């Protein structure tokens, strides 16, 4: 099967063309070794099927980003039968820059002049034949969006792919051409493929070329000494870039005929207000830009996770309304305590109800089976699986909103607005999006880090994403905070909840700062980015995008996540005698919990607790399946302690029972919340992190989560211990202050010393590097 590669700038309609050409045959994966998306599909309308490979969107073939290296290596090493270069007709000048580089490679090529419909609408006429004549490869005007002329494009592409094409350059500077010619001969002598391309890149002082062909550098250097251009001196890189742009403006300025003559009064180019400019005037406004973004963000989360849509019910509007569906399943689906649910929550509830119904159904079928078997199927496999799949609707809704923001071009503006703040922490403005997505769910957030160019920046961001407390961690917060309020008579539940979110954010900032100065050291990556024109999102592309994400997630849920879930189910239902217990009491997990319980002593929920104290350790482990399980674990044990106890929806009663029966202090409770927020996230997030992190970083990331949560929680517990353990009666527990004060002193001392420690660490590293060199 012939292979055609799609190459072009970002935002030139490449993905749209790919979708139109391949339809349902598209397959999404990753390029080997990196997390850059690789898409391929089949075009079937020719006499033989053709495989289409979508290369990443790039501006140039220089090895600046991963994407550029991938595209370059693919064309050079994998020998596609043809390259389809997509050129955005509305911005010929910058798009053709890549074309001039692609022309230098020995590969058949065709140019798809895209967005021709937009030009026609403006009344602009483009002389396609003139371009073809000048550039020397077939040029076909198409509209990827309207699927115009695509058959013709592919027909001509197929014809072109039958004959080999020799690379040629448009560089006109005679002296440089002479040098390129010499290097070209040298490359030919070494029997290197694509000698012309390599020769030009070597003269351009390209990193990869210099590293691979250092033997030819003296030749270039010797030539450089004899050379002196009046404007550029011996700066070959600048001369060649300049040459390319000159070629483009000299040759293609005349092919575009605008219907409306640009107002060029007094020789000054009037800057026309396009639609994008008008939108930008509002969205990136100096004062309102940040505010508008905050509002947009609020609505995204509100529509995904809100249980009181637009707060319609807040004013008590529905207080006396008795919906006709009260008492039926519909009530739970769209109705929540007098408010209407958001689309995200409705989908979530619909999923949840379907799953619950399904589990009950299976449970009924298995009525005759042994108890352990139906327990395994219903509580182990199905419940575990559905706990993970249950996230899917909200993950997808969140993805949808962010995909719309990305698609319309707003996301680039968000990075533009926020870059200044994030650079302070050694990150770029782009890092904000994945972090804020973390408040919804870590899984899409971690995948979204792909937009970050720098690997170290990505690693640091992925590691702190779980600190932005996700939707599933909220029940832990509300239940335990409610429990603290109930058991210790503390009136401000929301104060606890709110401050826990702040703790997560502070921990994230501290950890990013630490990492960016030590193990993930590096300056914020340069921020040189196109701000694409705004356009309407495309329904089809969005759906394809969502479908890919859903497939990916479901596949994971059925493999690694399911396996881990089953292991934990087994541990929590079987005793050491391998007998099925049907409850946690006496299970392997319980004894494991008791074993590790002393580790948590400095955190306030370890050895100092009485009989049922192991529940906290166990809950932390079951929380790995899904953070909802933390409170579910309380619920299970509460039923053991108080016979006849039935679980409550919010889990507050459960928390109170735990507090009363374990003797945990309020400080310990809050420490427990903090621990769950900072520690290893759920299996779904772990699996995502493993896939998204650079090779070998996952084990360090797990260690990072453990250490960060342990230290962070210990700090919080110690600091809280300065306050009396009885919130109202001002009573201290025995030895509480004696412990707390020295520990807090040590913490303060360490915090002061940290910058010096970082300096020392970096100096040592630099010394080692010097020794090695």
């Amino acid at each position, binding site marked *: 099967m012939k292979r055609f590669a799609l190459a072009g700038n970002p935002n030139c309609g490449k993905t749209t063309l790919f979708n139109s050409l391949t339809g349902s045959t598209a397959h999404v994966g990753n390029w080997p070794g990196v997390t850059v998306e690789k898409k391929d599909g089949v075009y079937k309308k020719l006499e033989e099927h053709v495989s289409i490979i979508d290369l990443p969107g790039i*501006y*140039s073939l*220089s090895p*600046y980003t991963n994407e550029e290296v991938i595209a370059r290596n693919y064309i050079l090493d994998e020998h596609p039968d043809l390259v389809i270069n997509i050129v955005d007709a509305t*911005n010929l*000048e*910058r798009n053709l*820059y890549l074309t001039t580089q692609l022309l230098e490679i020995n590969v058949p090529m065709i140019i798809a002049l895209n967005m021709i419909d937009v030009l026609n609408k403006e009344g602009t006429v483009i002389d396609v034949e003139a371009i073809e004549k000048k550039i020397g490869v077939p040029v076909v005007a198409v509209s990827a969006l309207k699927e115009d002329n695509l058959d013709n494009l592919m027909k001509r592409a197929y014809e072109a792919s039958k004959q080999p094409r020799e690379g040629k350059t448009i560089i006109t500077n005679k002296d440089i051409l002479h040098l390129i010619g010499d290097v070209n001969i040298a490359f030919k002598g070494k029997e290197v493929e694509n000698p012309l391309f390599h020769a030009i890149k070597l003269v351009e002082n390209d*990193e990869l070329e210099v590293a691979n062909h250092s033997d030819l550098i003296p030749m270039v250097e010797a030539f450089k000494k004899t050379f002196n251009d009046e*404007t*550029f001196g011996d700066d070959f*890189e*600048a001369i060649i*870039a*300049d040459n390319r*742009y*000159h070629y483009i403006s000299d040759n293609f300025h005349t092919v575009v005929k605008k219907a409306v003559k640009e107002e060029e009064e*007094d*020789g*000054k*180019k009037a*800057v026309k207000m396009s639609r*994008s400019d008008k939108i*930008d005037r509002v969205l*990136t*406004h*100096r*004062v309102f*830009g*940040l505010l508008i973004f905050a509002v947009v963000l609020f609505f995204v989360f509100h529509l995904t996770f809100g249980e009181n849509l637009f707060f319609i019910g807040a004013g008590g509007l529905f207080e006396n309304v008795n919906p006709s569906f009260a008492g039926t399943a519909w009530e739970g689906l769209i109705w929540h305590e007098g408010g209407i649910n958001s689309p995200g929550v409705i989908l979530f509830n619909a999923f949840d109800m379907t799953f619950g119904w399904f589990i009950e159904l299976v449970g009924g079928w298995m009525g005759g089976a042994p108890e352990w078997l139906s327990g395994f199927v219903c509580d182990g496999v199905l419940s575990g699986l559905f706990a993970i799949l249950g996230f899917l609707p909200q993950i997808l809704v969140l993805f949808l909103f962010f995909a719309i923001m990305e698609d319309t071009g707003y996301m*680039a503006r968000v990075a*533009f*607005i926020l*870059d*200044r*703040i994030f*650079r302070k922490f050694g990150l770029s403005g782009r890092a904000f999006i994945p972090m804020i997505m973390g408040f919804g769910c870590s899984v899409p957030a971690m995948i979204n880090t792909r937009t970050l160019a720098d690997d170290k920046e990505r690693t640091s961001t992925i590691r702190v994403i779980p600190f932005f407390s996700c939707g599933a961690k909220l029940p832990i917060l509300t239940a335990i905070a409610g429990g603290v309020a109930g058991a210790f008579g503390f009136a401000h539940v929301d104060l606890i909840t709110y401050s826990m979110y702040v703790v997560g954010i502070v921990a994230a900032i501290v950890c990013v700062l630490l990492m960016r100065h030590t193990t993930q050291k590096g300056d914020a990556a*340069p*921020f*040189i*980015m*196109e*701000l*694409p*024109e705004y356009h309407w999102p495309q329904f089809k592309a969005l759906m394809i995008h969502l479908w890919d994400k859903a497939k990916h997630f479901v596949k994971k849920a059925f493999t690694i996540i399911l396996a881990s879930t089953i292991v934990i189910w087994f541990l929590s239902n079987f005793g050491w005698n391998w007998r099925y217990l049907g409850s946690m009491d006496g299970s392997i997990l319980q004894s494991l919990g008791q074993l590790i319980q002393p580790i948590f002593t400095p955190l306030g929920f370890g050895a100092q607790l009485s009989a049922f104290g192991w529940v906290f350790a166990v809950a932390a482990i079951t929380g790995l399946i899904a953070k909802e399980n933390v409170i579910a674990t309380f619920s299970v044990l509460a039923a053991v302690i108080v016979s006849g106890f039935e679980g409550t929806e919010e889990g507050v009663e459960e928390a109170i029972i735990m507090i009363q029966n374990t003797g945990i202090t309020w400080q310990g409770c809050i420490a427990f919340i903090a621990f769950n927020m900072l520690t290893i996230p759920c299996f779904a997030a772990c699996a995502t992190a493993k896939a998204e992190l650079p090779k070998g970083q996952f084990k360090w990331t797990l260690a990072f989560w453990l250490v960060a949560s342990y230290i962070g929680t210990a700090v919080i517990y110690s600091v809280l211990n300065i306050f009396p353990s009885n919130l109202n009666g001002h009573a201290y527990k025995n030895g509480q202050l004696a412990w707390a004060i020295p520990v807090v002193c040590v913490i303060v001392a360490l915090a002061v010393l940290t910058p010096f420690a970082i300096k020392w660490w970096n100096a040592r590293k630099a010394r080692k590097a010097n020794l090695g060199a």
Partner: protein
Amino acid sequence: MLKKLDQFKIGETGLIKKVEGEGRLRRRLFDMGVTPGATVYLRKVAPLGDPLEVTIRGYELTLRKSEAQLVVLEVEEKK
């Protein structure tokens, strides 16, 4: 009058004379069309004063002041 891009005021236009810096950063600037001879129009500054948004070669580009500082331009006189 020669001026660096980070010193530009909103609405100013200039012709690039020289791109300083080295290595990858400079390469990137070239690839994005920031080469001597190109006309740059400073369109906007982000809400917190950095980065900048310019019009160059018919599209919008954003870059930080630290990168804009590498670009030396001849300011076009306003008429």
